[in-house]
C-alpha cells in the first residue's frame, strides 16, 4: 500500500475516523492493528519478523532497565546482536557472500529471501530505544504501546526514525479529537503527494531512461539525469516524510523533521544536518559520539567520520555503490576538515566574508555539485556504470541533449524545471518563513493552495492507465 495510492487514502481516512470514534483507551490498540495491517499489505509473513524484533527489544529493554543478573551491557549486546543478525540475514547476507566468494573458490552462497520493507528503519528505531534504556532512560513497560512505537504506520517503512523519548510520550498522552489536527495534517499530505506524483515520478522517467542505459547517452544527458536524480530523490523522500508527518498529525502525533532544504547547504557537513535528519542524528548519537565524536584528535575524528559514513552507506543498501557513496561523503568531510585552516586563510587574504551572500551562493553551488557527484554512485546500478558515468562527465563525452532520448517530452521537461524552481522557493518559505503554519491559520489562501495542489496532481501527476505507482525510493532500505 503505497502512500501515493487510492488505497492508502482510503486506509488513512478509515484509520483516522475509527481512531477518533473509539474510546480513548482503545485508540492505541486500533492504531497498532492498523499499523500491522498496513505492514502486512506488503507481505504478511514479515509482520512476524517485526513482531520478533519488537519482542526482543522490548524484553531486552526491560531486562536492561532492571539490571537483571546485574548486567546492563549483556542485554544491550543481546538486543543488538539479535536485531543486527536479522538485518544481516535479510539485507546483507547475499552481499557479504558475494564479497567473500573469492575466499571460497569463487562459490557464493545466496539466499532467496525478499528484503522486508522498511527493515532498516524499524530495526534502527528499536535499537535506538534499547541504547536509550541502556543509557538510563526508563524502559517501556506496556508491550502494546512499545509495539505501536516500533510499528506506527506513518513512519514505519521509510521513517523518520523516531526517538523513543519523543514517540512513547505521545503514545501515552491523551490525544483528543481536534479538527485543527486534521487541517494541519492535510496540507503536508497534499504537498507530499504533489512532490511525489508530479515531480519525483516524472523526473524518474528521465533518470530511469538515462541510468538504465548510460552508455547510450552523452555527458550532458548524464549530467542532466544526475541533477534530475538529485531532484527526484529529494522530492521522493521528503514527500514520504511530509505524508508521514501529515498522516501522523491527523492522528494527533508530531513526528520529527527530516529535511531542512538540503540543497541550500553550504557544505557537505551542513548537507547532512539537513538531509534525512532522523538518520544522521541517529548515527551521530548512537555511533559517532560513542566513537569519540569531535572531542578527539583530528585524525581520529576523520577516522570516525569515515566509519560513520561508510556504515551509513551500507545502511542504505547492500551494494558496493552504496558503500562507496557513503565513504565518499565521509571523504568530503575529511577533506573539508583538513583544508579548513587553509580556507580560512584564503578568505582572510582576499578579505572575503564567509557569510557574504555571494560567498554562500558559491559554497551552495559547490556543495550541490559535490552531492550530485556522489548521487551518481547512489543511483548507478553497478560500479561499472558509475565509473563510466564519471568518465563521461569528466571527459565531456558529448554535449548535445536529445530530448526524445530522455523519455519525456519537451513540455514535461519545461514543467519539471519550473516545478523544481518553484519548489526551491516554496521550501524556503516553508522552512524559513514557517509558511505551512501561517497558511493553516487562513481560510481562503489555504483552500486555494489545496486546489492548486490537487489540480497539479490531477493534471500532471503520474497515475492512470498503465501506470504502476512507483515505490518510494527509500522503501528499499
Amino acid at each position, binding site marked *: 500500500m503505497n502512500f501515493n495510492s487510492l488505497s492508502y487514502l482510503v486506509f488513512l481516512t478509515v484509520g483516522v475516523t475509527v481512531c477518533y470514534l473509539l474510546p480513548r483507551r482503545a485508540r492505541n490498540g486500533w492504531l497498532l492493528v492498523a499499523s500491522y495491517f498496513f505492514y502486512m499489505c506488503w507481505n504478511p509473513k514479515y509482520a512476524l519478523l517485526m513482531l520478533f524484533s519488537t519482542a526482543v527489544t522490548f524484553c531486552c529493554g526491560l531486562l536492561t532497565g532492571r539490571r537483571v543478573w546485574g548486567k546492563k551491557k549483556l542485554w544491550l549486546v543481546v538486543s543488538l546482536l539479535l536485531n543486527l543478525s536479522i538485518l544481516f540475514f535479510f539485507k546483507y547476507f547475499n552481499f557479504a557472500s558475494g564479497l567473500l566468494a573469492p575466499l571460497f573458490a569463487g562459490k557464493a552462497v545466496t539466499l532467496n529471501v525478499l528484503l522486508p520493507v522498511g527493515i532498516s528503519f524499524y530495526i534502527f528505531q528499536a535499537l535506538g530505544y534499547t541504547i536509550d534504556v541502556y543509557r538510563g532512560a526508563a524502559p517501556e513497560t506496556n508491550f502494546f504501546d512499545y509495539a505501536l512505537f516500533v510499528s506506527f504506520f506513518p513512519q514505519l517503512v521509510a521513517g523518520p526514525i523516531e526517538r523513543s523519548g519523543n514517540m512513547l510520550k505521545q503514545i501515552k498522552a491523551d490525544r483528543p479529537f481536534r479538527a485543527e489536527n486534521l487541517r494541519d495534517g492535510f496540507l503536508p499530505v497534499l504537498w507530499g503527494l504533489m512532490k511525489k506524483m508530479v515531480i519525483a515520478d516524472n523526473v524518474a522517467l528521465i533518470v530511469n531512461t538515462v541510468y538504465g542505459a548510460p552508455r547510450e547517452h552523452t555527458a550532458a544527458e548524464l549530467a542532466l539525469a544526475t541533477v534530475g536524480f538529485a531532484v527526484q530523490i529529494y522530492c521522493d523522500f521528503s514527500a514520504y516524510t511530509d505524508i508521514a508527518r501529515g498522516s501522523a498529525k491527523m492522528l494527533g502525533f508530531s513526528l520529527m523533521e527530516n529535511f531542512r532544504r538540503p540543497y541550500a547547504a553550504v557544505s557537505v557537513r551542513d548537507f547532512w544536518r539537513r538531509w534525512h535528519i532522523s538518520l544522521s542524528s541517529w548515527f551521530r548519537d548512537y555511533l559517532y559520539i560513542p566513537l569519540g565524536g569531535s572531542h578527539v584528535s583530528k585524525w581520529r575524528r576523520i577516522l570516525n567520520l569515515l566509519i560513520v559514513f561508510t556504515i551509513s552507506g551500507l545502511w542504505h543498501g547492500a551494494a558496493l555503490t552504496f558503500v562507496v557513496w557513503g565513504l565518499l561523503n565521509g571523504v568530503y568531510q575529511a577533506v573539508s576538515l583538513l583544508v579548513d585552516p587553509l580556507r580560512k586563510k584564503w578568505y582572510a587574504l582576499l578579505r572575503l566574508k564567509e557569510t557574504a551572500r555571494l560567498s554562500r551562493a558559491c559554497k551552495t553551488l559547490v556543495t550541490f555539485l559535490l552531492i550530485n557527484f556522489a548521487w551518481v554512485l547512489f543511483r548507478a546500478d553497478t560500479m561499472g556504470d558509475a565509473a563510466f558515468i564519471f568518465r563521461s562527465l569528466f571527459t565531456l563525452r558529448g554535449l548535445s541533449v536529445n530530448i526524445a532520448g530522455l523519455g519525456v517530452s519537451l*513540455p514535461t521537461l519545461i514543467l519539471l524545471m519550473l516545478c523544481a524552481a518553484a519548489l526551491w522557493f516554496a521550501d524556503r518559505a516553508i522552512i524559513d518563513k514557517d509558511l505551512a503554519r501561517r497558511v493553516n491559520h487562513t481560510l481562503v489562501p489555504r483552500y486555494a493552495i489545496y*486546489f492548486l495542489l490537487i489540480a497539479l496532481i490531477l493534471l500532471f501527476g503520474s497515475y492512470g492507465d498503465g501506470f504502476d505507482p512507483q515505490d518510494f525510493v527509500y522503501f528499499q532500505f
Partner: protein
Amino acid sequence: MSRKKQTILYVLIVLNVLFIWCNSMLPAETSNAISDPIISRLDRAISEKEEPVVEAQTKPSETEPPKTTESEKQETENPVQKEKKHETVSLFFFKIRTHRFVRKSAHILEYILLGLWCALLLLRDGIRPARYKFLALTGLFVPLIDETIQFWSGRTSLVGDIWLDLLSFSVGVFVVTAGSYLSNRKNRKHTEKKPGRRPYEFSLKKELAAGVCLLAALVLLCGAALPVLTPKRHDYGSVWGMYEKEPKNSVDVLVLGSSLAYCDIVPAVLYEKTGLTSFVMAGPEQTFPVTYRYLKQALKTQSPRFVMVEATGLLFGKTNRSVKVNLTYMPYNLDRLSATMTETAGSERAGLLFPMYAYHDRWDELTAEDLRKGVLGYDTDPMAGYTFLDEITVIDGFSPRDLPDEPDTYLENLSFVEKIRDLCAEKGIRLYFFLSPYASRPEDGDRAKIMKDVTDRGIMFKDFNGSFDSFGFDLKTDFYDPAHLNYRGAVKFTEYLADRLKANITPSGKADAALWKKRVSRFSELRAAADAAPPRYKQTTDNNG
C-alpha cells in the same frame, strides 16, 4: 536611487532602443544571416526527436490505416512549396516554426528588458500612478517607430507586432511594479505596526463551506479539462461528438454495429441514390450490450424510421480492447454508467468512470485542434459516421473468421437483441438485422444460427453473404481487408442496399439539404482523388470487427 545608477539606466535604455531600431534597419537577408545559426541549431536539435508513439486507445482496430489529420490532408492536397523549410517548436497547444520562435523570443526579450529599465528609472522612488502614462507612451512609441523602420527597410511590418512589443514592454513594467509593491510592503511591515487583522479562527461551518467550494472548483476544472484532454474522434466509429450536432430528428435510417457497419455503408451514397438521410453510429468491435446503449442514446436526439444492425457482433467476446473506446465518447448518463460497470473492469473501468485517470497525461501532446474542439465542441460529421478507406487487399478466396467461442456471451447478446427489438417496437421503428458481405466470414453454421435466432425473435434479417455475387464486387480492388470493404466495395454494397431501401421507405424530408449536399460532394471528392491516384495496396491482411 543614486545618480550613478540613474545614469546607468539612461545608458541602458538608449542602448536597448538603438539595438532594437538598428536591427530593424537591417535588410531581411542580413538579419537572417545573424539568426540562422541559432535557428539551424534548434532545427537540428528538434529534428533528432522521434515521433511520439500514438496511444493504443486511439487505434480501435488493427485494421485501421494510419489516420490523416485535416492539416496533413490540406498539405497533401495543396502542397505549398516554401523557400526554406524549418522545424516546428511545440509549445503546449501551438506549433511555431523555429525561425519565428527564435526571432519573436529575441524581440520579446528586448522589449521586456526595455520595460524593466524604463520602469526602474521612472518608479525609482516608489509607485507613482502619474508616471505610467510616460511608460505607456514609451511602450507604444518605440515599437511604432520600430515597425515603421521595418516598413521602410522593405521588411514585413505588422500591427500585431506592435501589440506584442507593447505587451512585452508591459511585462517588464509589471515585474518592476510588483517588486516595488512587495518591497514597499516589506518596508512598511518593518516600520509600521500591523493593523489589527484578526487571525482566522477555526470554524467547522466555514471549513465545510470552503470544502464544498473546493469540490465544486475541482469538478469545474475536470469538466473544463476533460473535453480538451480526451483524444478527438472523427472516424472509425464512436463519433458521438459529431452525431449530437446532427439536426434533431433529421435521420431516416440509423445504422449500428461494428466496423463492418462504418466501413461498408456510405450515407452520402444512400442519400444520393434515395434521398434518405442516414447515420452510421457504430463502434469498433462493438458488442451487443454497447450497441443497445448506443441505440438508446441515439434515439434521444433522432427519431429514425428504420434501424439497421450489423449482426456479426453477436459472435464477439464479452470484452475486447475496443469496449473502452466505444464507451469513452458516449455522453455521460446512466446507460454509459451501467455499460461501464458491466462491460469493463480494472483500469479501463477507472478510466471510464473518471476519464482524467485515462487522459490527463495527454497534456503535453495537445494540439490546437484539441483545444478548439475541446472548447467549442465538434462540428457535424462530413461523412455521417462512415470511414473512408482506400487501401486494397486482393482477395483470393473465402476464409473462416476466427471468433471466440463463448456460448454464454452469445446468449447474453441475444437478450440485448430482444431489448433492441422492444425499444424499436416502443418507438415505432422498423428494425433490420444483417450480416455484411465479407471474404473472411464466420462459419456457415454460425451465420445460420444467427439468422434463426434473430428471425425467431420476429426481426427482419438478411445475410448478404448469401447474395455475395449480386453486388458485383471485384475481389482484386474492392476490399480493404478480408473483413472490410474499401470505398469501392462500400459504394457497390450501399447502392445495392439503396435499391432495397427505396422500395421500403420514403425520405421524411427533414434533411438539411445543404449539409447533405456537402457530404455528397465531400465523398465524391475523396472518391475522385482516390480513383485518380495509383492503387494503394495494404501490406498486411488481418480481419477484425
